[in-house]
Protein backbone atom coordinates (compact mmCIF):
# COMPACT_ATOMS: atom_id res chain seq x y z
CA UNK A 1 0.00 0.00 0.00
CA UNK A 2 1.24 3.41 -0.96
CA UNK A 3 0.85 6.17 1.65
CA UNK A 4 0.55 9.82 0.66
CA UNK A 5 1.66 12.31 3.33
CA UNK A 6 0.85 16.00 2.74
CA UNK A 7 3.14 18.32 4.73
CA UNK A 8 2.98 22.08 5.25
CA UNK A 9 5.69 24.63 5.92
CA UNK A 10 4.55 26.86 8.77
CA UNK A 11 5.90 29.22 11.40
CA UNK A 12 7.90 27.24 13.97
CA UNK A 13 5.69 26.33 16.92
CA UNK A 14 8.07 27.97 19.39
CA UNK A 15 7.90 31.36 17.68
CA UNK A 16 5.40 33.90 18.91
CA UNK A 17 3.64 35.33 15.84
CA UNK A 18 3.61 39.11 15.42
CA UNK A 19 0.74 40.87 13.72
CA UNK A 20 1.79 43.44 11.11
CA UNK A 21 0.94 47.00 12.19
CA UNK A 22 -1.05 47.63 8.98
CA UNK A 23 -3.40 44.74 9.76
CA UNK A 24 -2.56 42.87 6.56
CA UNK A 25 -1.42 39.67 8.23
CA UNK A 26 1.23 38.05 10.40
CA UNK A 27 4.86 39.05 9.86
CA UNK A 28 6.74 36.01 8.54
CA UNK A 29 9.88 37.83 7.36
CA UNK A 30 13.00 36.37 8.97
CA UNK A 31 10.91 34.07 11.13
CA UNK A 32 11.97 30.46 11.70
CA UNK A 33 9.80 28.10 9.66
CA UNK A 34 9.36 24.35 10.23
CA UNK A 35 7.18 21.45 9.25
CA UNK A 36 3.71 21.66 10.80
CA UNK A 37 4.03 19.52 13.98
CA UNK A 38 0.94 17.43 13.16
CA UNK A 39 2.41 16.63 9.73
CA UNK A 40 5.63 15.44 11.36
CA UNK A 41 3.50 13.00 13.32
CA UNK A 42 1.91 11.88 10.03
CA UNK A 43 5.31 11.27 8.41
CA UNK A 44 6.40 9.30 11.48
CA UNK A 45 3.24 7.18 11.42
CA UNK A 46 3.69 6.41 7.73
CA UNK A 47 7.24 5.23 8.43
CA UNK A 48 6.00 3.03 11.26
CA UNK A 49 3.34 1.53 8.97
CA UNK A 50 6.09 0.75 6.48
CA UNK A 51 8.26 -0.78 9.23
CA UNK A 52 5.32 -3.04 10.13
CA UNK A 53 4.90 -4.07 6.51
CA UNK A 54 1.51 -2.32 6.13
CA UNK A 55 2.89 0.38 3.80
CA UNK A 56 5.23 -0.09 0.86
CA UNK A 57 6.01 3.42 -0.35
CA UNK A 58 5.72 6.86 1.26
CA UNK A 59 5.18 9.89 -0.96
CA UNK A 60 5.39 13.32 0.71
CA UNK A 61 3.52 16.22 -0.91
CA UNK A 62 3.70 19.91 -0.13
CA UNK A 63 1.73 22.77 -1.62
CA UNK A 64 3.52 26.05 -1.07
CA UNK A 65 6.41 28.31 -2.07
CA UNK A 66 9.75 27.05 -3.43
CA UNK A 67 11.05 26.97 0.15
CA UNK A 68 8.56 24.21 0.97
CA UNK A 69 11.23 22.02 -0.64
CA UNK A 70 13.05 22.22 2.70
CA UNK A 71 10.00 20.76 4.42
CA UNK A 72 9.85 17.97 1.85
CA UNK A 73 13.57 17.28 2.33
CA UNK A 74 12.91 16.98 6.07
CA UNK A 75 10.24 14.36 5.40
CA UNK A 76 12.62 12.54 3.04
CA UNK A 77 15.32 12.65 5.72
CA UNK A 78 12.87 11.18 8.23
CA UNK A 79 12.18 8.32 5.83
CA UNK A 80 9.74 9.21 3.03
CA UNK A 81 10.72 7.69 -0.33
CA UNK A 82 9.99 10.53 -2.72
CA UNK A 83 8.35 13.94 -2.79
CA UNK A 84 6.12 16.18 -4.89
CA UNK A 85 6.18 19.97 -4.56
CA UNK A 86 3.16 21.77 -5.94
CA UNK A 87 4.60 25.23 -6.12
CA UNK A 88 2.49 28.29 -5.46
CA UNK A 89 3.65 31.59 -4.03
CA UNK A 90 0.14 32.64 -3.11
CA UNK A 91 -1.64 31.36 -0.05
CA UNK A 92 -3.66 28.27 -1.02
CA UNK A 93 -6.85 27.69 0.99
CA UNK A 94 -7.74 24.26 2.41
CA UNK A 95 -10.43 23.65 -0.25
CA UNK A 96 -7.96 24.20 -3.11
CA UNK A 97 -5.31 22.13 -1.29
CA UNK A 98 -7.86 19.32 -0.99
CA UNK A 99 -8.60 19.56 -4.73
CA UNK A 100 -4.90 19.32 -5.60
CA UNK A 101 -4.49 16.36 -3.24
CA UNK A 102 -7.53 14.68 -4.81
CA UNK A 103 -5.90 15.00 -8.25
CA UNK A 104 -2.65 13.57 -6.88
CA UNK A 105 -4.57 10.73 -5.22
CA UNK A 106 -6.18 9.91 -8.56
CA UNK A 107 -2.74 9.76 -10.13
CA UNK A 108 -0.89 7.95 -7.35
CA UNK A 109 -3.71 5.67 -6.12
CA UNK A 110 -2.56 5.56 -2.48
CA UNK A 111 -4.14 3.16 0.02
CA UNK A 112 -4.06 5.88 2.65
CA UNK A 113 -3.53 9.62 2.94
CA UNK A 114 -2.03 10.43 6.33
CA UNK A 115 -1.91 14.11 7.29
CA UNK A 116 -1.97 16.51 10.20
CA UNK A 117 -5.40 17.38 11.63
CA UNK A 118 -4.65 21.07 11.39
CA UNK A 119 -1.87 23.47 10.50
CA UNK A 120 -0.75 25.68 13.36
CA UNK A 121 -0.82 28.83 11.24
CA UNK A 122 -4.42 29.14 10.02
CA UNK A 123 -5.79 26.53 12.50
CA UNK A 124 -8.46 25.57 9.94
CA UNK A 125 -8.70 21.81 10.59
CA UNK A 126 -10.40 21.17 7.23
CA UNK A 127 -8.12 19.78 4.55
CA UNK A 128 -8.26 16.08 5.44
CA UNK A 129 -12.05 16.04 5.76
CA UNK A 130 -12.41 17.97 2.48
CA UNK A 131 -10.08 15.61 0.64
CA UNK A 132 -12.05 12.61 1.96
CA UNK A 133 -15.29 14.17 0.66
CA UNK A 134 -13.91 15.01 -2.78
CA UNK A 135 -12.26 11.58 -3.06
CA UNK A 136 -15.43 9.83 -1.87
CA UNK A 137 -13.50 7.98 0.83
CA UNK A 138 -13.91 7.62 4.62
CA UNK A 139 -12.07 9.80 7.14
CA UNK A 140 -10.46 9.00 10.48
CA UNK A 141 -9.82 12.40 12.01
CA UNK A 142 -7.84 13.29 15.18
CA UNK A 143 -6.20 9.85 15.30
CA UNK A 144 -4.35 8.63 18.38
CA UNK A 145 -4.01 5.03 17.10
CA UNK A 146 -3.97 3.59 13.57
CA UNK A 147 -4.10 -0.13 12.80
CA UNK A 148 -4.28 -1.50 9.29
CA UNK A 149 -6.10 -4.84 9.04
CA UNK A 150 -6.13 -5.95 5.41
CA UNK A 151 -8.86 -4.03 3.60
CA UNK A 152 -9.76 -1.80 6.54
CA UNK A 153 -8.07 0.52 9.00
CA UNK A 154 -9.07 0.89 12.62
CA UNK A 155 -8.65 4.45 13.84
CA UNK A 156 -8.93 5.55 17.46
CA UNK A 157 -10.00 9.19 17.56
CA UNK A 158 -9.52 11.81 20.26
CA UNK A 159 -13.04 13.18 20.70
CA UNK A 160 -14.57 15.51 23.29
CA UNK A 161 -16.07 12.63 25.23
CA UNK A 162 -13.00 10.36 25.27
CA UNK A 163 -11.63 7.95 22.67
CA UNK A 164 -13.77 6.76 19.78
CA UNK A 165 -12.80 3.89 17.51
CA UNK A 166 -14.04 3.61 13.94
CA UNK A 167 -13.32 1.05 11.24
CA UNK A 168 -12.80 2.52 7.77
CA UNK A 169 -12.63 0.88 4.37
CA UNK A 170 -9.35 1.54 2.56
CA UNK A 171 -8.40 3.74 0.84
CA UNK A 172 -9.03 6.26 3.59
CA UNK A 173 -7.88 9.63 4.87
CA UNK A 174 -6.43 9.68 8.40
CA UNK A 175 -5.59 12.92 10.22
CA UNK A 176 -3.22 12.85 13.15
CA UNK A 177 -3.60 14.14 16.68
CA UNK A 178 -0.80 14.87 19.13
CA UNK A 179 -0.55 11.56 20.88
CA UNK A 180 -0.32 9.24 17.88
CA UNK A 181 3.46 8.99 18.16
CA UNK A 182 6.63 10.94 18.86
CA UNK A 183 8.31 11.86 15.60
CA UNK A 184 11.97 10.92 15.15
CA UNK A 185 14.76 13.36 14.44
CA UNK A 186 16.46 12.82 11.11
CA UNK A 187 20.04 11.61 11.50
CA UNK A 188 22.85 13.39 9.68
CA UNK A 189 23.51 10.48 7.28
CA UNK A 190 19.78 10.40 6.46
CA UNK A 191 19.73 14.15 5.87
CA UNK A 192 22.59 13.67 3.38
CA UNK A 193 20.82 10.72 1.76
CA UNK A 194 17.59 12.73 1.44
CA UNK A 195 19.31 15.19 -0.89
CA UNK A 196 19.43 12.57 -3.63
CA UNK A 197 15.88 11.26 -3.20
CA UNK A 198 13.50 12.20 -6.05
CA UNK A 199 11.53 15.45 -5.72
CA UNK A 200 9.17 16.41 -8.54
CA UNK A 201 8.01 20.02 -8.96
CA UNK A 202 4.52 20.77 -10.26
CA UNK A 203 2.05 23.65 -10.25
CA UNK A 204 -1.65 23.79 -9.30
CA UNK A 205 -2.39 24.29 -13.02
CA UNK A 206 -0.81 20.89 -13.75
CA UNK A 207 -3.69 19.44 -11.74
CA UNK A 208 -6.27 21.78 -13.23
CA UNK A 209 -7.00 23.45 -9.88
CA UNK A 210 -7.92 27.11 -9.56
CA UNK A 211 -6.39 28.42 -6.32
CA UNK A 212 -8.09 31.81 -6.31
CA UNK A 213 -9.15 32.40 -2.68
CA UNK A 214 -12.81 32.17 -1.71
CA UNK A 215 -12.29 33.99 1.55
CA UNK A 216 -11.02 37.53 1.64
CA UNK A 217 -9.03 38.39 4.75
CA UNK A 218 -9.93 42.03 5.30
CA UNK A 219 -7.99 42.52 8.51
CA UNK A 220 -5.69 40.74 10.94
CA UNK A 221 -5.42 42.22 14.41
CA UNK A 222 -3.94 41.50 17.80
CA UNK A 223 -6.30 39.80 20.24
CA UNK A 224 -7.38 41.88 23.23
CA UNK A 225 -4.52 41.89 25.71
CA UNK A 226 -5.14 40.54 29.18
CA UNK A 227 -3.58 42.56 31.95
CA UNK A 228 -1.69 40.76 34.65
CA UNK A 229 -3.50 41.07 37.97
CA UNK A 230 -2.27 40.89 41.49
CA UNK A 231 -0.07 38.42 43.29
CA UNK A 232 -1.23 37.35 46.71
CA UNK A 233 1.17 36.36 49.45
CA UNK A 234 -0.60 33.49 51.16
CA UNK A 235 -3.24 30.83 50.85
CA UNK A 236 -5.47 32.78 53.24
CA UNK A 237 -5.41 35.78 50.92
CA UNK A 238 -6.20 33.52 47.97
CA UNK A 239 -9.12 31.97 49.84
CA UNK A 240 -10.45 35.44 50.62
CA UNK A 241 -10.22 36.42 46.92
CA UNK A 242 -11.98 33.25 45.80
CA UNK A 243 -14.72 33.80 48.35
CA UNK A 244 -15.14 37.36 47.12
CA UNK A 245 -15.66 35.94 43.63
CA UNK A 246 -18.42 33.74 45.00
CA UNK A 247 -16.55 30.59 44.10
CA UNK A 248 -16.19 29.18 47.57
Amino acid at each position, binding site marked *: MKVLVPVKRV*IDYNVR*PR*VKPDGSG*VDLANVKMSMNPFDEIAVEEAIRLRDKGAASEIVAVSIGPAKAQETLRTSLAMGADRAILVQSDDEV*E*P*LAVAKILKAIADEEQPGMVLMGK*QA*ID*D*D*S*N*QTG*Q*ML*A*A*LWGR*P*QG*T*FASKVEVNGETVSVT*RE*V*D*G*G*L*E*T*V*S*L*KLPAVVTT*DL*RLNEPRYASLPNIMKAKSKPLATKTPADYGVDTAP*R*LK*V*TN*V*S*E*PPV*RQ*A*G*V*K*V*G*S*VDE*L*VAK*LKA*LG*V*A
Partner: protein
Amino acid sequence: MKTLVLVEHDNQHFKDATLATVTAAAKLGEVHLLVAGKACRAVADAAARIAGVRKVHLADDAAYEHQLAENIAPLVAQLMAEHDAFLAPATTTGKNVAPRVAALLDVMQISDVIAVEGDRTFKRPIYAGNAIATVESSDAKLVATVRGTAFEKAAAEGGSATIEEVSGPGDAGLSRFVGLEAEASERPELASAKVIVSGGRALKDAATFEQLIVPLADKLGAAVGASRAAVDAGYVPNDYQVGQTGKIVAPQVYIAIGISGAIQHLAGMKDSKVIVAINKDEDAPIFQVADIGLVGDLFQIVPELTEKL
Protein backbone atom coordinates in the same frame (compact mmCIF):
# COMPACT_ATOMS: atom_id res chain seq x y z
CA MET B 1 -30.76 34.11 5.41
CA LYS B 2 -31.94 30.61 6.30
CA THR B 3 -29.37 28.84 8.45
CA LEU B 4 -29.18 25.14 9.30
CA VAL B 5 -27.50 24.31 12.61
CA LEU B 6 -26.18 20.85 13.42
CA VAL B 7 -27.47 19.77 16.82
CA GLU B 8 -24.83 17.97 18.83
CA HIS B 9 -26.38 15.20 20.91
CA ASP B 10 -26.10 11.64 22.21
CA ASN B 11 -29.54 10.53 20.92
CA GLN B 12 -31.07 11.51 24.28
CA HIS B 13 -30.07 15.09 25.06
CA PHE B 14 -28.57 17.89 23.05
CA LYS B 15 -25.21 19.31 24.15
CA ASP B 16 -24.81 22.89 25.38
CA ALA B 17 -22.53 23.76 22.45
CA THR B 18 -25.67 23.70 20.29
CA LEU B 19 -27.15 26.69 22.14
CA ALA B 20 -24.19 28.98 21.46
CA THR B 21 -24.30 27.98 17.80
CA VAL B 22 -28.01 28.89 17.67
CA THR B 23 -27.10 32.37 18.97
CA ALA B 24 -24.54 32.79 16.18
CA ALA B 25 -27.04 31.52 13.59
CA ALA B 26 -29.74 33.91 14.81
CA LYS B 27 -27.46 36.80 13.85
CA LEU B 28 -27.71 35.60 10.24
CA GLY B 29 -31.49 35.21 10.10
CA GLU B 30 -33.96 32.32 10.32
CA VAL B 31 -32.67 29.36 12.35
CA HIS B 32 -33.39 25.73 11.46
CA LEU B 33 -31.89 22.76 13.28
CA LEU B 34 -30.87 19.30 12.17
CA VAL B 35 -31.17 16.44 14.61
CA ALA B 36 -29.68 13.38 12.95
CA GLY B 37 -29.44 10.22 14.98
CA LYS B 38 -31.15 7.00 15.92
CA ALA B 39 -34.27 6.95 18.10
CA CYS B 40 -33.58 10.61 18.84
CA ARG B 41 -37.14 11.99 18.81
CA ALA B 42 -36.65 13.27 22.38
CA VAL B 43 -33.73 15.39 21.21
CA ALA B 44 -35.83 16.92 18.45
CA ASP B 45 -38.64 17.64 20.91
CA ALA B 46 -36.24 19.41 23.26
CA ALA B 47 -34.49 21.24 20.41
CA ALA B 48 -37.86 22.53 19.16
CA ARG B 49 -38.19 24.42 22.46
CA ILE B 50 -34.92 26.34 22.04
CA ALA B 51 -35.75 30.04 21.80
CA GLY B 52 -35.61 31.49 18.31
CA VAL B 53 -35.73 28.24 16.35
CA ARG B 54 -38.23 28.06 13.45
CA LYS B 55 -37.96 24.46 12.34
CA VAL B 56 -36.30 21.21 13.39
CA HIS B 57 -35.35 18.67 10.74
CA LEU B 58 -35.35 15.20 12.25
CA ALA B 59 -33.46 12.43 10.46
CA ASP B 60 -33.93 9.18 12.36
CA ASP B 61 -31.85 6.38 10.89
CA ALA B 62 -29.37 3.84 12.31
CA ALA B 63 -26.79 5.27 9.88
CA TYR B 64 -26.79 8.54 11.86
CA GLU B 65 -26.56 7.06 15.36
CA HIS B 66 -22.86 7.83 15.86
CA GLN B 67 -22.59 11.02 13.79
CA LEU B 68 -20.28 9.39 11.24
CA ALA B 69 -19.23 12.18 8.89
CA GLU B 70 -19.43 9.89 5.84
CA ASN B 71 -23.18 9.44 6.49
CA ILE B 72 -24.14 12.83 7.96
CA ALA B 73 -22.39 15.06 5.38
CA PRO B 74 -24.46 13.93 2.35
CA LEU B 75 -27.65 14.41 4.39
CA VAL B 76 -26.63 17.98 5.26
CA ALA B 77 -25.57 18.67 1.68
CA GLN B 78 -29.02 17.55 0.54
CA LEU B 79 -30.76 19.85 3.06
CA MET B 80 -28.58 22.75 1.95
CA ALA B 81 -30.62 22.96 -1.26
CA GLU B 82 -33.12 24.91 0.85
CA HIS B 83 -30.73 26.70 3.25
CA ASP B 84 -28.18 29.48 2.76
CA ALA B 85 -25.80 28.66 5.59
CA PHE B 86 -24.71 25.67 7.64
CA LEU B 87 -23.28 26.14 11.13
CA ALA B 88 -21.89 23.48 13.43
CA PRO B 89 -20.42 23.84 16.92
CA ALA B 90 -16.59 23.75 16.81
CA THR B 91 -16.54 20.52 18.81
CA THR B 92 -14.82 17.36 17.63
CA THR B 93 -18.12 16.30 16.02
CA GLY B 94 -18.64 19.63 14.23
CA LYS B 95 -15.01 19.83 13.13
CA ASN B 96 -15.28 16.33 11.69
CA VAL B 97 -18.53 16.85 9.78
CA ALA B 98 -18.54 20.50 8.60
CA PRO B 99 -15.51 20.46 6.25
CA ARG B 100 -16.88 17.32 4.60
CA VAL B 101 -20.13 19.22 3.98
CA ALA B 102 -18.22 22.27 2.72
CA ALA B 103 -16.27 20.22 0.17
CA LEU B 104 -19.46 18.54 -1.09
CA LEU B 105 -20.91 22.02 -1.66
CA ASP B 106 -17.65 23.42 -3.09
CA VAL B 107 -17.50 25.99 -0.30
CA MET B 108 -14.50 27.23 1.67
CA GLN B 109 -15.39 26.79 5.33
CA ILE B 110 -14.86 29.42 8.01
CA SER B 111 -13.53 27.62 11.09
CA ASP B 112 -13.99 28.62 14.70
CA VAL B 113 -16.06 31.78 14.30
CA ILE B 114 -15.83 34.07 17.35
CA ALA B 115 -17.89 36.98 15.99
CA VAL B 116 -20.51 37.53 13.31
CA GLU B 117 -19.73 40.89 11.70
CA GLY B 118 -22.20 40.73 8.84
CA ASP B 119 -23.96 38.30 6.51
CA ARG B 120 -20.68 37.15 5.01
CA THR B 121 -18.10 38.59 7.39
CA PHE B 122 -16.75 36.84 10.44
CA LYS B 123 -13.92 36.99 12.92
CA ARG B 124 -11.84 33.92 13.70
CA PRO B 125 -8.65 33.26 15.64
CA ILE B 126 -5.50 32.14 13.82
CA TYR B 127 -2.00 31.25 15.06
CA ALA B 128 -3.30 29.74 18.31
CA GLY B 129 -5.30 32.87 19.02
CA ASN B 130 -2.27 35.15 18.70
CA ALA B 131 -4.06 36.96 15.87
CA ILE B 132 -7.69 37.54 14.96
CA ALA B 133 -8.59 37.50 11.26
CA THR B 134 -11.65 39.17 9.78
CA VAL B 135 -12.74 37.14 6.75
CA GLU B 136 -15.36 37.69 4.11
CA SER B 137 -16.81 34.79 2.12
CA SER B 138 -17.53 34.98 -1.59
CA ASP B 139 -19.15 31.53 -1.81
CA ALA B 140 -22.82 31.09 -2.70
CA LYS B 141 -23.47 29.15 0.50
CA LEU B 142 -21.88 29.60 3.87
CA VAL B 143 -20.32 26.82 5.99
CA ALA B 144 -18.80 27.63 9.37
CA THR B 145 -17.99 26.18 12.75
CA VAL B 146 -18.71 28.26 15.84
CA ARG B 147 -16.62 28.57 18.96
CA GLY B 148 -19.03 27.98 21.83
CA THR B 149 -17.26 30.18 24.37
CA ALA B 150 -17.59 33.24 22.13
CA PHE B 151 -21.41 33.38 22.09
CA GLU B 152 -24.05 33.49 24.80
CA LYS B 153 -26.17 30.38 24.98
CA ALA B 154 -29.65 30.68 23.50
CA ALA B 155 -32.43 29.99 26.02
CA ALA B 156 -33.21 26.27 26.05
CA GLU B 157 -36.91 26.99 26.58
CA GLY B 158 -39.37 29.40 25.05
CA GLY B 159 -39.42 28.33 21.41
CA SER B 160 -42.03 26.28 19.61
CA ALA B 161 -40.51 25.12 16.35
CA THR B 162 -42.19 22.66 14.03
CA ILE B 163 -40.56 19.27 13.60
CA GLU B 164 -40.24 17.89 10.10
CA GLU B 165 -39.04 14.38 9.45
CA VAL B 166 -36.46 14.10 6.71
CA SER B 167 -34.51 11.22 5.27
CA GLY B 168 -31.15 11.23 3.61
CA PRO B 169 -28.99 8.81 1.64
CA GLY B 170 -28.37 6.75 4.83
CA ASP B 171 -25.34 4.53 5.20
CA ALA B 172 -22.55 5.39 2.75
CA GLY B 173 -20.96 2.01 3.54
CA LEU B 174 -17.51 3.51 4.07
CA SER B 175 -17.15 3.55 7.83
CA ARG B 176 -18.37 1.79 10.94
CA PHE B 177 -18.51 2.87 14.59
CA VAL B 178 -16.67 0.37 16.79
CA GLY B 179 -16.76 1.86 20.27
CA LEU B 180 -16.38 4.81 22.60
CA GLU B 181 -14.15 4.72 25.63
CA ALA B 182 -15.54 7.36 27.91
CA GLU B 183 -14.70 8.00 31.49
CA ALA B 184 -17.82 8.16 33.61
CA SER B 185 -17.63 11.26 35.73
CA GLU B 186 -19.93 13.01 38.16
CA ARG B 187 -18.10 16.26 37.62
CA PRO B 188 -19.32 19.02 35.27
CA GLU B 189 -18.15 18.92 31.66
CA LEU B 190 -15.11 21.02 30.82
CA ALA B 191 -16.88 22.87 28.02
CA SER B 192 -19.71 24.16 30.19
CA ALA B 193 -18.20 24.28 33.72
CA LYS B 194 -18.34 27.52 35.69
CA VAL B 195 -15.11 26.69 37.50
CA ILE B 196 -12.17 24.66 36.18
CA VAL B 197 -9.19 23.40 38.14
CA SER B 198 -6.38 22.53 35.77
CA GLY B 199 -3.07 20.83 36.45
CA GLY B 200 0.25 20.78 34.63
CA ARG B 201 3.40 18.73 34.43
CA ALA B 202 4.56 19.96 37.84
CA LEU B 203 2.02 17.56 39.38
CA LYS B 204 4.67 14.81 38.92
CA ASP B 205 2.48 11.76 38.20
CA ALA B 206 -1.06 10.46 37.83
CA ALA B 207 -1.41 9.61 41.53
CA THR B 208 -0.30 13.06 42.67
CA PHE B 209 -2.61 14.73 40.15
CA GLU B 210 -5.49 12.68 41.55
CA GLN B 211 -4.54 13.45 45.17
CA LEU B 212 -4.10 17.20 44.74
CA ILE B 213 -6.28 18.43 41.87
CA VAL B 214 -9.35 16.25 42.26
CA PRO B 215 -10.21 17.09 45.92
CA LEU B 216 -9.88 20.81 45.18
CA ALA B 217 -12.12 20.46 42.13
CA ASP B 218 -14.67 18.47 44.14
CA LYS B 219 -14.71 21.12 46.85
CA LEU B 220 -15.42 23.82 44.26
CA GLY B 221 -17.81 21.73 42.16
CA ALA B 222 -15.36 22.31 39.34
CA ALA B 223 -14.40 20.45 36.20
CA VAL B 224 -10.86 19.12 35.91
CA GLY B 225 -8.58 20.16 33.08
CA ALA B 226 -4.93 19.68 32.22
CA SER B 227 -2.13 21.06 30.11
CA ARG B 228 -0.82 19.14 27.12
CA ALA B 229 2.32 18.26 29.09
CA ALA B 230 0.24 16.60 31.81
CA VAL B 231 -1.80 14.65 29.25
CA ASP B 232 1.30 13.60 27.29
CA ALA B 233 2.91 12.43 30.54
CA GLY B 234 -0.14 10.22 31.13
CA TYR B 235 -1.44 11.91 34.31
CA VAL B 236 -4.95 12.18 32.85
CA PRO B 237 -6.83 11.12 29.66
CA ASN B 238 -6.71 13.16 26.45
CA ASP B 239 -10.17 14.69 26.84
CA TYR B 240 -8.89 16.72 29.81
CA GLN B 241 -6.59 18.77 27.60
CA VAL B 242 -7.17 22.51 27.41
CA GLY B 243 -5.39 24.38 24.62
CA GLN B 244 -4.99 25.18 20.94
CA THR B 245 -5.63 21.61 19.92
CA GLY B 246 -7.58 20.48 22.96
CA LYS B 247 -10.67 22.08 24.44
CA ILE B 248 -11.30 25.81 24.33
CA VAL B 249 -12.83 26.90 27.63
CA ALA B 250 -13.98 30.17 29.15
CA PRO B 251 -15.29 29.52 32.66
CA GLN B 252 -16.00 32.12 35.33
CA VAL B 253 -12.88 31.00 37.17
CA TYR B 254 -9.93 29.03 35.79
CA ILE B 255 -7.40 27.82 38.35
CA ALA B 256 -4.08 26.83 36.74
CA ILE B 257 -1.89 24.78 39.03
CA GLY B 258 1.70 23.97 38.06
CA ILE B 259 1.05 25.18 34.52
CA SER B 260 3.75 27.42 33.07
CA GLY B 261 1.48 28.92 30.41
CA ALA B 262 2.77 27.90 26.96
CA ILE B 263 1.03 29.85 24.16
CA GLN B 264 -0.72 26.67 23.07
CA HIS B 265 -2.28 26.35 26.54
CA LEU B 266 -3.16 30.04 26.83
CA ALA B 267 -4.99 29.73 23.50
CA GLY B 268 -7.46 27.41 25.19
CA MET B 269 -8.25 29.37 28.35
CA LYS B 270 -7.34 33.05 28.10
CA ASP B 271 -10.96 34.08 27.60
CA SER B 272 -11.78 32.84 31.10
CA LYS B 273 -13.33 35.56 33.22
CA VAL B 274 -10.91 35.20 36.13
CA ILE B 275 -7.63 33.30 35.92
CA VAL B 276 -5.93 32.11 39.08
CA ALA B 277 -2.38 30.77 38.84
CA ILE B 278 -0.35 28.82 41.34
CA ASN B 279 3.24 28.22 40.30
CA LYS B 280 6.63 28.06 41.96
CA ASP B 281 8.31 30.04 39.16
CA GLU B 282 7.42 33.70 39.58
CA ASP B 283 8.50 34.40 35.98
CA ALA B 284 6.17 31.77 34.48
CA PRO B 285 4.19 33.27 31.54
CA ILE B 286 0.92 32.19 33.17
CA PHE B 287 1.31 35.10 35.59
CA GLN B 288 1.16 37.55 32.67
CA VAL B 289 -2.48 36.61 32.08
CA ALA B 290 -3.49 35.68 35.63
CA ASP B 291 -5.79 37.96 37.62
CA ILE B 292 -4.71 36.38 40.88
CA GLY B 293 -1.33 34.74 41.27
CA LEU B 294 0.29 32.85 44.11
CA VAL B 295 3.98 31.97 43.88
CA GLY B 296 4.99 28.93 45.85
CA ASP B 297 5.19 25.18 46.23
CA LEU B 298 1.96 23.67 44.97
CA PHE B 299 2.48 20.54 47.09
CA GLN B 300 1.96 22.70 50.18
CA ILE B 301 -0.41 25.31 48.75
CA VAL B 302 -3.00 23.05 47.15
CA PRO B 303 -3.78 20.84 50.18
CA GLU B 304 -3.93 23.93 52.38
CA LEU B 305 -6.23 25.66 49.91
CA THR B 306 -8.52 22.63 49.68
CA GLU B 307 -8.73 22.48 53.45
CA LYS B 308 -9.45 26.17 53.95
CA LEU B 309 -12.12 26.53 51.29
